[in-house]
């Protein structure tokens, strides 16, 4: 029902505050932007310029040496494809499992929710460690398979807790009660009411799991042996390590290598973070106010 709202002129105090916020955010923008530009510029400079500290704002002795060194390893493309696979499927699996446990935990009438909560929070504080976990993964037969990157770290307790908090706050028990009286089962309620209303939190889960998957390397390091299963980060790291301390016995060559490595670190950051930066705008649109339709109030 369209209403003709009066255009109330904003009080002076409010406009001042808004102004200050804009100024503050602009300062934040500049302070954040400058180092980022520095990194990108460095990545397009020459090794000598970078190690000599000559780069300040724009590329010095512009060159693609850094990028060429990164892409020299033909397996980068395999790495990208694999990372894409792990990110998409890993995130899906994670979100599903997380929601499966977060939603029941958010219902006050769900008996055992405290105990269950303690059960999972405990795993956040205590862990078996590298070798015992490896032995379990091995026993389950996941070593050197794609599943090794999708399952062992599928659920992050942190995410479960955030999701639970969201469900608790935004899906009040009364709503669930009401739908139950209408004959709607828990599952139907989840599928038809909860999920549509949870777009913001799903976006957060998706973003955080996706970023986590994309950046992950340790699991791949330990559980994978075959190089055509490797995610991108593993290839990138190996390039860096291999160039860092070479087996050359001549100091001059070693010094040259070190210079190149110093440059490559910057090119590497650009190459590896570009995809993750690009997905952010897609996720941002879910952080718009009023995503929850008035249906809640009904």
């Amino acid at each position: 029902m369209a209403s003709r709202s009066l255009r109330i002129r904003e009080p002076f105090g409010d406009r001042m505050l808004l102004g200050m916020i804009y100024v503050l955010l602009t300062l934040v923008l500049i302070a954040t932007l400058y180092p980022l530009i520095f990194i990108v510029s460095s990545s397009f400079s020459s090794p000598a310029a970078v190690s000599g500290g000559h780069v300040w704002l724009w590329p010095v002795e512009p060159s693609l040496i850094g990028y060429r060194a990164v892409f020299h390893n033909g397996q980068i493309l395999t790495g990208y494809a694999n990372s894409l696979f792990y990110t998409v499927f890993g995130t899906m699996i994670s979100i599903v499992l997380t929601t499966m446990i977060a939603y029941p935990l958010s219902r006050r009438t769900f008996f055992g929710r405290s105990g269950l909560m303690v059960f999972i929070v405990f795993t956040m504080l205590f862990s078996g460690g590298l070798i015992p976990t490896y032995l379990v993964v091995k026993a389950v037969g996941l070593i050197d398979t794609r599943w090794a990157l999708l399952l062992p770290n599928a659920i992050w307790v942190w995410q479960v807790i955030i999701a639970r908090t969201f469900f608790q706050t935004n899906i009040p028990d009364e709503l669930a009660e009401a739908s139950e009286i209408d004959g709607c089962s828990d599952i139907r309620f989840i599928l038809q009411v909860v999920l549509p209303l949870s777009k913001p939190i799903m976006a957060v889960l998706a973003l955080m799991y996706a970023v986590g998957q994309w950046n992950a390397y340790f699991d791949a390091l330990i559980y994978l042996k075959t190089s055509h299963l490797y995610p991108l980060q593993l290839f990138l790291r190996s390039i860096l390590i291999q160039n860092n301390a070479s087996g050359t016995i001549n100091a001059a060559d070693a010094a040259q290598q070190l210079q190149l490595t110093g440059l490559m670190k910057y090119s590497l950051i650009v190459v590896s973070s570009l995809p993750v930066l690009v997905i952010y705008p897609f996720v941002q649109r879910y952080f718009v106010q009023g995503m929850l339709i008035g249906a809640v109030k009904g």
Partner: protein
Amino acid sequence: MKKIVSLAAAVLMAIVLMVTGCSNGGHADQNGNSAANPSSGASAGSSSEPAANPVTISIFADQDSWQDLPTNAFTKTLEQKFNIRFQWTTVPYDGAPEKRQISLASGDYPDVFLLVPYIDHFTQADLLKYGQQGVIVPLNDLIDQYAPHIKEVLDANKDYKAMNTAPDGKIYGLNGLSACYHCSFPNKMWVNTAWMKKLQISTPKTTDDFKKMLEAFKTKDPNGNGKADEIPLSGSTETFGVHVVPFLMNAFIYDDDHTYLIMDNGKVDFAPNKPQWREGLKYIKSLYDEGLIDPAAFTQNAAAFAKTGNHNPELLGAGAGMHPAIFVDLNSESSKHYDSIPPLTGPGGVSYATFNYSGNPGASFVITNKAGKEQQIAMIKALDYIYTFEGQLEANTGIEGVDWRKPKEGEKALDPSMQARWTTIPGKPGDKPHNNAWAQLGQYNLSSEFRGSQVQSTDIYSPDGYERRLFDATKNNYDGKQPKQIFPHWAVWIDPGSADQAGMMQTNINNYVEQNELQFITGSKSLDKDWDDYVKGFDGLNLKGYLDIMQKAYDASTYGK
């Protein structure tokens, strides 16, 4: 619509990947056993004698990204020569230490471990622990009976032998002999001789001379830009001799930049609580107070140090470091301006160079209890080959005519007392790397003969003559200036029972020394008022107990015996 399409594309790609990903077998993966070969796989098909069945050796190795060890030329050489068939478990450098630990902890380990020392190695504690548990096989008998060249090298190099021999006399594993001459004198001082010439200063011999030189750098504007922006002396916090203090302290008392231990007629003693140390700090403080030492020298990393060295116009008067490429680009004009100076003589007449045997304790080669007698013998024989000149050359560099060549007429060896015997053939840019050498995986006999006979340009200021530049610097200015007795921290094995405590004590004591060093130098503590408290502070850290442990270790070691 767009979303559906991109989702579908992703799913499609995923399916494709899954299908290809799941077919694991077939092509050569990391566990490249050439599975296609029938069991009588003597790969040297046409050898004249009937090949007895080759000995299969399972081996765990750190593999560089350009290598493929199963098909590597040097691997083939060894397999042919010693009738071996290697079964490789190769791991990339990334995560190699973890993978080795997992392999051992899960009981799933091979006959032999072959590691790249700076990536991963068995520490002394590891060797003792696994040795005593029976996981590792001692090599003494194998070496005596089947490896004459290894024996020769061990006997000829007492530091190397002590480094590899545990106090109980057993050799549990081997690390590589790496006679890096210039590396063994890491704490050098490189001075801007172009500036010295301009200001007509002669090479400083005493601590006073050095100070006067730094003062001249600071006040007389040698870079000629009208600004007093020169940085007389700088260094950094990392390794490779870049600490500013040791070179200067060596004019007062020996500073090994590592354990701070000194020897006094067979007795292990400690330098930082001595009056000479205090005198040294006084001197360094006097430099600092006049602004002659770059304050950043105590906080910056190598990259920032290099920034100072590469500045245009030149800013750096003197830089501490193992070699100048650490702080100045070898391709620049500036790099030609820095030359090393010999250790300074302090007012007490003391003048030392820090000596650090190049080589790290521990082992990169180990034979486990999973290897049968046959495997042990074959493997030690194969390793023995690397301990010959030719073997090492092939293992490190590759094939003659492809990766290395004999010297041409007129080419000189690095060590002027030696005949030049080899040099590398530089690859063309864009070339695929050759899979012909084990490189850092096979560096066991980089003897002074091997290194010294490599061809080096006589223009020491060019990148091609850089090794010669460092060799000359070491020979002319540092070799022979180390104390007669040094605590051989590389050759000493600490009793595993006290190793945890020793580790903690050493970390505590070293932290304390370094922290106070700087507090005295920068003036936040006074060398007059606070010195006694500082010395007393060592009691609280159980310095006595630490020295006892170190003394016991020294006495028990096989060093020099």
